[in-house]
């Protein structure tokens, strides 16, 4: 069979794998909704969780789609479609693909024409993510029961523990936002763009919170995170024109 990075057979295989991944999400969603009903959880809370997750996901999902397009130049559509729909993130996939292409003496802007090169790149990209895929099914129960043990021992500490984990993660990303500010001393102000975007998003979130509580606009609370995300991303356009 003649090889082509966009061959229909590759689309079919990738489509089947993605359908299975979609099946897992639908399965867990149905089971969780069923359990919520059994437990008598407020239907409104479940509905709001679903609608808010939909709204929140749109912008990041489009950003992932941009990643598929940028990788499709050399790899065609099916492989980036698979790799970014399953486990992958653009940061990892671009590095892994770039590495494999360099080893093959190809550039990231050169389209692969041989099936052997394609298989080589696909194995490199897939092997990097294998560890999480393999270990999570084996170790999640152990990790979770360890956390439950700590929390059952001391409820108050258990609550602080989970908040501390969230804050630890957020503080790392907050640090990242400021990573290029020192370029200002070299006359490059572009490092301030993420800082400005961060503060616009933070202020938007605070304003949404205030409106929700003071004016009793409850829906504002449900969509505060997507609103702050979209406003922050929109603010990036004038900031990039100004500082970029």
């Amino acid at each position, binding site marked *: 069979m003649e090889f082509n990075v966009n061959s229909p057979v590759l689309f079919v295989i990738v489509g089947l794998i993605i359908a299975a991944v979609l099946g897992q999400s639908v399965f867990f969603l149905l089971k969780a909704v069923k359990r919520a009903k059994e437990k008598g959880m407020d239907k409104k809370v479940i509905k709001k969780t679903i609608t808010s*997750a939909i709204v929140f996901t749109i912008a990041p999902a489009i950003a992932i789609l941009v990643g598929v397009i940028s990788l499709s130049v050399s790899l065609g559509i099916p492989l980036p479609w698979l790799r970014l729909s399953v486990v992958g993130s653009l940061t990892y996939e671009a590095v892994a693909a770039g590495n494999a292409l360099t080893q093959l003496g190809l550039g990231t802007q050169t389209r692969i024409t041989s099936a052997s090169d394609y298989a080589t790149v696909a194995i490199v990209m897939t092997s990097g993510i294998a560890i999480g895929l393999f270990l999570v099914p084996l170790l999640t129960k152990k990790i*979770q029961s360890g956390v439950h043990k700590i929390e059952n021992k001391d409820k108050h500490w258990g609550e602080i523990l989970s908040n501390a984990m969230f804050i630890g993660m957020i503080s790392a990303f907050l640090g990242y936002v400021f*990573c290029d500010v020192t370029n200002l001393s070299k006359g490059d102000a572009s490092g301030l763009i993420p800082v400005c975007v961060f503060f616009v998003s933070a202020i938007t979130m605070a304003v949404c919170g205030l409106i929700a509580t003071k004016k009793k606009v409850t829906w504002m609370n449900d969509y505060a995170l997507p609103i702050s995300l979209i406003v922050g991303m929109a603010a990036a356009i004038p900031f990039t024109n100004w500082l970029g």
Partner: protein
Amino acid sequence: MRKNSNELTYLEKIHVWGRIWGLSLFFLIMAFPLAVCIIYGVLPKWGPLFNGILAVLPMYWAVGVIEMLTYVPMLGAGGAYLSFVTGNISNLKLPCALDAMQRANVKASSEEGEIISTISIAVSSIVTTVIIIVGVILIIPLTPVLESPVLNASFAQLLPALFGGLAVVFVSKQWKLSIAPIILMLLLFIFIPALNAGTVGIMVPVGVIFTLIVARVLYKKGKI
């Protein structure tokens, strides 16, 4: 007692389903390169393959293990089984689940938290997959739009826009606990040039471990 046994049953079931789905999908995803080799009757190029894997594997496997230990307790069981298959955890799934649990006022470790986290991550995964499918179908008309400099400027700032909002929620909840890790991370990222967008993933566990130590000290002193 009945309630407790029910909770255990649901969680136990989640683990059983998670293992079956997780391992099945692992083999299915790994089979893609194998299918390419069989269909086209080729073998990979061993030299570039070996060098490529050597360049990628040590770093990404180490990060993979650390990410698992860091994110699984935050995501809950169902959320973890889903997130580690569909990916984009720190930039999409975890913020989505955190926001949902925060609004529903439930803890990740409770059964309600488990349910809310699973629902939000499952919905987010489905929406992402559907958007990418639509994008792939419409890739020709969409490419010039999505690659326009204006939209690229927005997408490049996704993480600052996301974490600006999240920081307000969580820092305001535990401001005493937040001060030390924020200062540490600011100093590290500003003064160590090697720390940037590519290495932020490695710094997440550092931030988490440091914050846990600070939290323990403050808790023992009765400050939080």
